[in-house]
């Protein structure tokens, strides 16, 4: 699974997506986020674990307890600043 990263998270990670092993899924968003945090730099880890980070599954923002399946589209991002 490719997990999409946006804005600061992408900058800290150094790429716009992270490959995550399908066989570790399903996981809740919270569990996925914790695992993901170990895959980058310390800066990335801290930024991803900020309480205001959002997770979208299939392009909809979901709660931390939402269960992610291997065929879902998943993205993590900081607070949105449109307009």
């Amino acid at each position, binding site marked *: 699974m490719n997990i*999409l990263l*946006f*804005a*600061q998270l992408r900058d800290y990670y150094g790429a716009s997506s992270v490959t995550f092993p399908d066989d570790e899924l399903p996981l809740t968003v919270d569990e996925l986020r914790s695992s993901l945090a170990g895959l980058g730099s310390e800066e990335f880890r801290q930024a991803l674990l900020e309480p*205001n980070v959002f997770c*979208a599954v299939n*392009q*909809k923002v979901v709660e931390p307890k939402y269960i992610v399946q291997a065929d879902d589209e998943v*993205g993590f*991002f*900081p*607070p*949105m*600043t*449109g*307009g």
Partner: protein
Amino acid sequence: MFEVELSATELDLSALNQRFMGTDESIGAVVSFTGIVRGNGIQAIEVEHYPGMTESVLSKKIESAAKRWPLRKASIVHRIGSLPVSEPIVWVSVASAHRAAAFLACEFLMDFLKVDAPFWKKELDANGVWKWVEVRSQDQDRANRWMGRYAPTQA
């Protein structure tokens, strides 16, 4: 009637306005909001978005607005990519029979667009350093207004 567009090139406000104004005889009020890049110590901004999700979130917000108020038309056009100071970044227009609905719906769309649509802005400051824009707490407060018991629905 309901349109969402992301544009990588400068918004042509005259063309947008002209296209929006039509011949629907039931329309008595059009409210338009134009957001412009302010020059308070910055040289330019860059707008990133989540392709697909951004369009879908904005379309759904227009649908929610149309459920709250009797809208005839609504359009959101947002810039993506790099913009210099004084260029329009977003244009939101709403048409209705009467002005109360048009004002409320336009402000509702703007308030959610600021904090609920996957856009991220970064600014190039006077020293040539790019900085991600932090969400303003007032923006979050304004969006929250619409969700409570005393939301300004119909005036």
